[in-house]
């Protein structure tokens, strides 16, 4: 019976990966790769090694740092900053879920319902990218301003009472609260959810919907049994593309939040650029990286789309 619960094989046969033909010049691919890969090795991989070594150093800025295999830095960093870690994960997860809930209808709209408006909507999704995201994030300060129309409406609808009770907002304001930060994160990473969703929805054969309808499936059932499962690759890559950068972001928490909403990105930034405590900063960013790697690996395993990586 176990086979029944498994996802059915895709209806369109996926072409086996074409093996690239062998060509003249055994070393040609290496010459093509050399400059770019060298760049990534020197400016991406090597820095990681440097950072690893920094995280186990002790010393001070004046006297210089030495590698002393001082792993306690990790423990200290973790025990001091675990609230910020937890907050980062919580905010990023909330923003990811919101992005999925908000982005799915729009992606669906563009893929199946937009008709001749498709290109226009696509442009409107991508074009905001070209206005600096910092300017757009600052605009949220105006939108969510104390006593502004948004806060006023939320107050009238008694939404703020609920969010106050949940601890997402404080008093009559939204700015400088967790709600504002999550709103900013959702806004900033929404396109990263919409585009992969759209790509995977667009690939779905419309005839499958018709077939499901012919078999007397109600629209909601068609969505649950056909559309959503087939859009899983888009869901997985979309959630990864929003969660990972959101967890490391410090811009939204800085511009829209307060000291109570500091995320781990804020801590790393201030340790590196203001306090200049390099070992702690390096340890923190390694913990963040490891945490994300673990979560992402588990998530990819669970969702059964290992071919993504």
């Amino acid at each position, binding site marked *: 019976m176990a086979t029944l619960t498994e996802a059915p094989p895709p209806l369109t046969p996926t072409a086996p990966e074409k093996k*690239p033909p062998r060509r003249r010049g055994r070393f*040609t*691919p*290496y010459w*093509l790769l050399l400059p*770019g*890969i060298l*760049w*990534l090795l020197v*400016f*991406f*991989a*090597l820095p*990681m090694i*440097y950072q690893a070594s920094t995280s186990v150093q002790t010393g001070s800025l004046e006297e210089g740092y030495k590698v002393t295999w001082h792993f306690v830095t990790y423990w200290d960093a973790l025990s001091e900053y675990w609230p910020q870690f937890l907050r980062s994960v919580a905010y990023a997860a909330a923003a990811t879920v919101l992005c999925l809930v*908000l982005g799915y*209808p729009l992606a*669906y*709209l*563009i893929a199946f*319902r937009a008709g001749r408006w498709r*290109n226009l*909507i696509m442009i*409107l999704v*991508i*074009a*905001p*990218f*070209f*206005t*600096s*995201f*910092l*300017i*757009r*994030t*600052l*605009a949220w300060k*105006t*939108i969510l301003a104390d006593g502004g129309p948004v806060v006023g409406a939320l107050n009238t609808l008694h939404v703020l009472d609920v969010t106050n009770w949940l601890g997402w907002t404080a008093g009559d304001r939204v700015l400088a609260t967790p709600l504002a930060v999550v709103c900013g994160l959702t*806004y900033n990473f*929404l396109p990263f959810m919409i585009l992969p969703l759209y790509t995977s929805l667009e690939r779905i054969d419309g005839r499958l919907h018709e077939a499901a309808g012919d078999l007397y499936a109600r629209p909601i059932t068609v969505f649950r049994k056909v559309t959503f499962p087939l859009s899983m690759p888009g869901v997985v890559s979309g959630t990864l593309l929003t969660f*990972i*950068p959101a967890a*490391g*972001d*410090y*811009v939204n928490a800085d*511009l829209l939040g307060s000291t109570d909403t500091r995320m781990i990105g804020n801590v*790393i*930034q201030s340790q590196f*650029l203001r306090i200049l405590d390099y070992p702690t*900063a390096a340890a923190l*960013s*390694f913990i*963040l*990286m490891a945490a*994300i790697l673990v979560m*992402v690996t588990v998530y990819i395993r669970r969702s059964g789309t290992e071919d993504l*990586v």
Partner: protein
Amino acid sequence: MPFLNWLKRHFVVIAGLLTLGYLLLPNVVVTVFSFNRPKGRFNYEWQQFSTDAWKDPCGVSDLCGSLSVSLQIAFWATLGATALGTLIAFALVRYRFRARGAVNSLIFLPMAMPEVVMAASLLTLFLNMGAQLGFWTILIAHIMFCLSFVVTAVKARVMSMDPRLEQAAQDLYAGPFQTFIRVTLPIAAPGIAAGALLAFALSFDDFIITNFNAGSTVTFPMFVWGSAQRGTPVQINVIGTAMFLVAVLLVLASMVISNRRNRQKA
């Protein structure tokens, strides 16, 4: 309840358009507030209609300087990342070689890494090497993180290319070089262009990695960041609005051109 039924039938359209509104709301605010005459240093509250900022977009010291720094960096980063990335994409799609898996992971990792981690580790490298932070370190960083995105964009295009087109060219006695220039490159061009556009947008807009590795060089995003603390001039909204308009116009123009070309072919 006819209204509820109508709501049910058009649920996706309504929800989708609401999301679109959420996406565009800040752009509307940015545009509206570019016509504001603020009291005090911050431009967060509507005071009075004025076109002063539009008449004098460079009126704030350092703003246009930072804009030109950003444009230069974005230009060279795009050039560098597109060149290196296209070569990698061709190698990955067209050849079988040993280190293919390792190369693929090395391309994937920068995209899956939180920016702040990359930014911090790059700063550690530069500090250890004693490099002078500034234009060059920003450029190096930007080429690094744009590279993966270019590879992905070009790879997608080259992979969907019909190999028979090249074989046909060779059957017609085109040499390898001629085949590449006359057949392969034109077909791959949209992918390369998409990668380049993406690289430009990413580099121009990057704040986190630049913030770590800029030293005292001020790019446009860093200027905006600083202004959020010191006071935001209206000119920032003018530049933001102009960027949005230019992007929409460019995309519309490219669509008109490609439509016309398709019609000519038909």
